[in-house]
């Protein structure tokens, strides 16, 4: 890989994500805290099973078909699928009225939080799924933009919208199968996660990764073979892309949940070797590779000295973030 054609990637360990929404809040405060962006969350954490944000995004089309042609897609509706942010009656609270939203909330970024599946206490379960733009290697948002307003940076693969060229036509939103590009109605432009590129340029990790209280996120270059990201994705193959069937080659990868507690039988006894999160249910999200990934993770867990397990613990920043590889360090030293 040419030094100029590099790709940053993020790995999110779903076993460590506690659904605290620190990432959501830090991103909201940093990037989408102004008018017209009220409803949008470049980072969101949703619950599986659940409908997610925007509601039922997985069924909205987009991406590419087997021939490599853009698939038709839908632009989500603000009130039905994103949810209009609501206000509370703060001004009335002193008159001893009920504290309540002023309008009936319809949907929201974390609507089905911890709704979960299964039956309590037998086999109920849920897990969190944090989602950001995948800075895809084959971004369908870019392919759909008739104004060439979306570009992918060669030096790190970050996908950005050129606000000067964007005309708010929203074919990109229909095209993104993850619905990770959003329309700003106030400015009539489309906006998306920028992988915190101003920080990347300073050698710092994106905010959603550095503010992660569960230390669940790893960030680095895919061609840095000494890096954690490379090892988790390429060497151990335990980090998998979300919905690889969408055909856009996403660059956010997930360590699937493999540590779910065992189920209980009718009497409330533990069923040995059972998993509340069934691997078969993860296939839709992560593809057939999930079986091997979970097998590897479980095997390594039994090995007290596993490099992989140590890597996943990652207590220090340097264990999770790596922005230079040897070659680049050498180039810089020249």
């Amino acid at each position, binding site marked *: 890989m040419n030094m100029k054609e590099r790709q940053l990637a993020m790995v999110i360990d779903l076993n460590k994500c506690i659904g605290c929404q620190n990432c959501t809040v830090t991103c909201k405060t940093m990037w989408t805290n102004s008018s017209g962006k009220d409803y949008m969350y470049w980072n969101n954490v949703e619950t599986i099973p659940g409908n997610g944000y925007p509601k039922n995004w997985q069924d909205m089309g987009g991406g590419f078909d087997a021939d490599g042609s853009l698939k038709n897609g839908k632009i989500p509706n*603000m009130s039905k699928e994103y949810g209009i942010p609501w206000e509370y009656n703060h001004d009335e609270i002193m008159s001893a009225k009920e504290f309540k939203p002023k309008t009936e909330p319809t949907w929201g970024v974390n609507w089905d939080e911890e709704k979960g599946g299964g039956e309590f206490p037998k086999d109920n379960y849920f897990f969190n799924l944090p989602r950001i733009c995948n800075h895809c290697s084959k971004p369908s948002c870019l392919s759909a933009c008739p104004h060439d307003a979306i570009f992918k940076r060669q030096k790190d693969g970050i996908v950005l919208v050129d606000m000067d060229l964007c005309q708010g036509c929203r074919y990109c939103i229909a095209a993104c199968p993850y619905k990770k590009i959003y329309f700003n109605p106030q400015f009539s432009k489309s906006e998306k996660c920028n992988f915190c590129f101003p920080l990347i340029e300073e050698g710092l990790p994106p905010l959603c990764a550095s503010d992660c209280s569960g230390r669940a996120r790893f960030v680095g270059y895919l061609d840095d073979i000494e890096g954690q990201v490379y090892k988790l994705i390429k060497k151990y193959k335990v980090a998998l892309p979300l919905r690889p069937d969408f055909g856009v080659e996403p660059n956010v990868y997930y360590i699937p949940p493999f540590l779910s507690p065992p189920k209980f039988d009718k009497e409330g006894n533990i069923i040995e070797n059972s998993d509340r999160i069934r691997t078969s249910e993860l296939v839709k999200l992560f593809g057939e590779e999930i079986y091997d990934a979970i097998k590897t993770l479980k095997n390594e867990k039994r090995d007290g000295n596993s490099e992989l397990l140590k890597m996943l613990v990652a207590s220090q920043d340097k264990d999770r973030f790596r922005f230079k590889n040897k070659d680049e360090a050498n180039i810089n030293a020249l």
Partner: protein
Amino acid sequence: MHSKIILSIFMACLASANNYIPAIKVPGDVLGIKATSKAWMSANFTKIKAYPFVSIKTNDARANKLNYNSGVKDINIKVLYDGKNIAFLLKWKDKTKNISKRLETDSFADGFGIELPTQLEVMPYVNFGDKKNSVVYYDAKIGINQNYKKQNFDENQDENSTIVRQEAYKYQKFSNAKRLNLKKSNTTMDLIYKNGYWLGSLSKQLVDKFSSMNSGAFIASFSLYDGQNLQRGRLRNLTPWESIKVEGIDGGEQLIETMNEHITANAKNGEVLMLKNCSICHNYKNIRKAPKYMAPDLSFIGGYGNLSYLKESILSPNKVQVEDFTKTAHPNFSWVEANEDGKNISIMPSFDWMSQSEIDDLLTFLQTLK
């Protein structure tokens, strides 16, 4: 057509009605005039037609369908000039007023566009120009006032707090835009809804950095966007290149004549030829035999395609190379490909082997596709 516009001399029966939009000279200053200005009283409306632009298929299936069925629309148009500046007024009927709303992500605003070639005497591809011939495209839609900062999301939007969102781009080909600074070039647009009609205006200097209309006649094309039909970007109602006669400046007769060319040969035979030769790649009207993204849909090509463009496309398809929706949207159906010498060529073959009368028949039929 990317060379000079030349009169076709060999066509069988060219109709000679010279329709054009007159640019009326008025005293005073037309720069900055609004859509409702009294100055417009000095001119009469000329009626032109705008056809659904369906050559490409976008990835928004609902919008493709609504756009296809949007119907042929009348635009009433006036042009004024004062010697230094020029102003256009468009009036069109629209039952529904669609503006972009603060709390909506999937609705689209009504609006209009005016397209001008950057060079006099060339005719770029009418849909945003081509590689050799650039156009400037002015676009106005009703948007939300960007200073609008109501803190409560549930309060209804004040309809008065809208603005005319005006933008201008230079296009060199299908998907290659450069944003232009409207203020710097003293260009203003206006758009208002009154009694079931939209009134849209544009005023600019006759000659500025981007285009020149200081000539006996020039060409322009006009677009309508109907938010109700989810029209935006390429999906719109589009006129062919129309000729505008600048009254008081000599010349331009030849251009007007060329733009008005119409051919009346044997349409029936043209239809047979079309089915035999073109329908393998092109879909049109109810003839849908070609693979979906193979080539432009020709259902309305006789509407927004001028005759000289149609003729050139058949005889020398490489002169104006039309690209698909975007370069990477349907990579298996690329409309422009590099040949052995690395030169980009259109995948459409030339039909110059046809006899003169066959070409005339085919063109006659193509003209009926609208």
